[in-house]
């Protein structure tokens, strides 16, 4: 086996002869697509984003240092599962304690349980059935930075998401042990992270009881076969397959079943979408108002991972369009690819199905017929018939951007 030093030396030698366009495709980027891109992000975002590494993580795209908001670069989405040390990091509040496995305790309580109890990590692993589910974790605000017009917030590109195998216990088993009363309407979750100032509302979220009791909703202590990284919620976090990341409470320390809807800033003020604009199936009725509703499930979406923006392809040679697709857990029914601005669409071949909550890989080969710029489009459809939109559905918080995926290549 070659040493790492030799490997790097070989790479450096390769770099010296670049220019033919035949070098590693992931490095052959157009100048207008920075590593911290995509180019549609606000200018100030691009100027202040860098590839930087949090302890234990590989360099990711730093959007903000404190609290840490770090995005997974595009190349990691060439694989269907996202490595733990490349998995994106998102926090609202900057006091983030390192909770050790030995210290960790979970309080299960609330006015709507019969028998409150506390459990430690050993009991979590031993006393309940262990299940593993592949599922996409996507920040509600993924792609916010591509909103047109731009809206305030963390200006994410495409990488505030990842796919992992989550192992842990069903939340419904925990709630059953505590004895859920029939008056329970929501289950409330708190993590160990806190705001630097007491005047800031703590990040506390709730789920409707029906979703808390869904057999896929987990308290996970393992991710891709390893303990959760600190920055992804160690020692245990909530996993809510199909729903956006805001509900996936990290460093989970408290679960409370309650008879009244949670009314805090994070439920009533933030993470809300206008009613009627999106084809949403899952409702969160105790939190709805006349005008808006909490964000719930993800919308069907896709990402083209190859070829890359600006890459050169050749007339008559096969080009493989590749990417990933995901949705609310209904499952991806198909992905179509277009090379003529959507006038005609060709069905892509779907890769192995890793589970309905997982990324689904796809690929489609074609030959470019004439030189010039060529735009490739990707459009996923799920088993409920929902599909990606042609035009952005603008909303004030920049959620649910599932505009048809697009990459421009040059045919030579």
């Amino acid at each position, binding site marked *: 086996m070659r040493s790492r030093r030799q490997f790097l030396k070989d790479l450096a030698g390769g*770099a010296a002869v670049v220019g033919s366009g035949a070098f590693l495709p992931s490095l052959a980027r157009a100048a207008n697509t920075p*590593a911290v891109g995509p180019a549609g992000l606000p200018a*100030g975002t691009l100027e202040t984003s860098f590839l930087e590494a949090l302890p234990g993580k*590989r360099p990711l795209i730093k959007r*903000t*240092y404190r609290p840490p908001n770090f995005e997974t670069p595009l190349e990691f989405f060439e694989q269907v599962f996202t490595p733990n040390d490349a998995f994106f990091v998102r926090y609202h509040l900057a006091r983030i304690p390192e909770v050790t496995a030995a210290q960790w305790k979970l309080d299960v309580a609330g006015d709507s349980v019969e028998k409150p109890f506390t459990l430690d990590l050993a009991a979590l692993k031993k006393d309940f059935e262990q299940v593993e589910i592949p599922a996409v974790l996507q920040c509600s605000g993924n792609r916010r930075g591509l909103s047109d017009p731009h809206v305030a917030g963390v200006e994410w590109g495409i990488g505030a998401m990842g796919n992992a195998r989550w192992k842990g216990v069903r939340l419904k088993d925990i709630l059953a042990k505590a004895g859920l009363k029939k008056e329970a309407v929501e289950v409330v979750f708190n993590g160990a992270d806190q705001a630097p100032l007491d005047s800031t509302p703590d990040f506390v979220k709730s789920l409707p009881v029906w979703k808390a009791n869904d057999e896929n909703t987990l308290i996970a202590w393992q991710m891709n076969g390893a303990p959760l990284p600190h920055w992804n919620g160690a020692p245990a976090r909530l996993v809510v397959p199909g729903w956006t990341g805001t509900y996936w409470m990290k460093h989970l320390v408290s679960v409370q079943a309650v008879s009244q809807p949670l009314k805090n800033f994070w439920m009533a003020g933030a993470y809300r979408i206008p009613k009627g604009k999106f084809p949403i199936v899952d409702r969160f009725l105790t939190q709805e108002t006349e005008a808006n509703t909490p964000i719930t499930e993800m919308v069907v979406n896709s990402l083209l991972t190859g070829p890359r923006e600006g890459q050169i392809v050749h007339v008559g040679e096969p080009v493989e369009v590749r990417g990933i697709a995901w949705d609310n857990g209904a499952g991806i029914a198909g992905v179509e690819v277009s090379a003529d601005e959507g006038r005609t669409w060709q069905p892509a071949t779907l890769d192995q199905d890793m589970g309905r909550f997982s990324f689904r890989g796809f690929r489609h080969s074609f030959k470019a017929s004439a030189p010039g710029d060529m735009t490739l489009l990707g459009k996923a459809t799920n088993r409920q018939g929902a599909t990606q939109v042609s035009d952005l559905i603008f909303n004030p918080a920049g959620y649910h951007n599932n505009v048809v995926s697009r990459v421009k290549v040059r045919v030579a």
Partner: protein
Amino acid sequence: MTALIALVLLATPASKYPDENRVQLKDGPDKALVLGRCAACHSQDYIPMNSPFLDRKGWEAEVNKMVKSYGAPIEPDEVAKIVDYLATNYGKK
């Protein structure tokens, strides 16, 4: 070359927290006030990241959100100064 450096970096997980002072606010009147009121809770990069697309009204809404929703300890007479700094240095032109 940048891409090569990035690739080398990708090979090694870090052990130290990165230095947030890599992003510094622009110099201007009331920069010290802005740092004093905002930086207790978040790094400075939140501001340039959200630029240059907010006009004065947009920045005012952000500052008010920080006070009302996030409990930022900003006195009423400081709001206008902070909004001035943000609109002047990071506002939509």
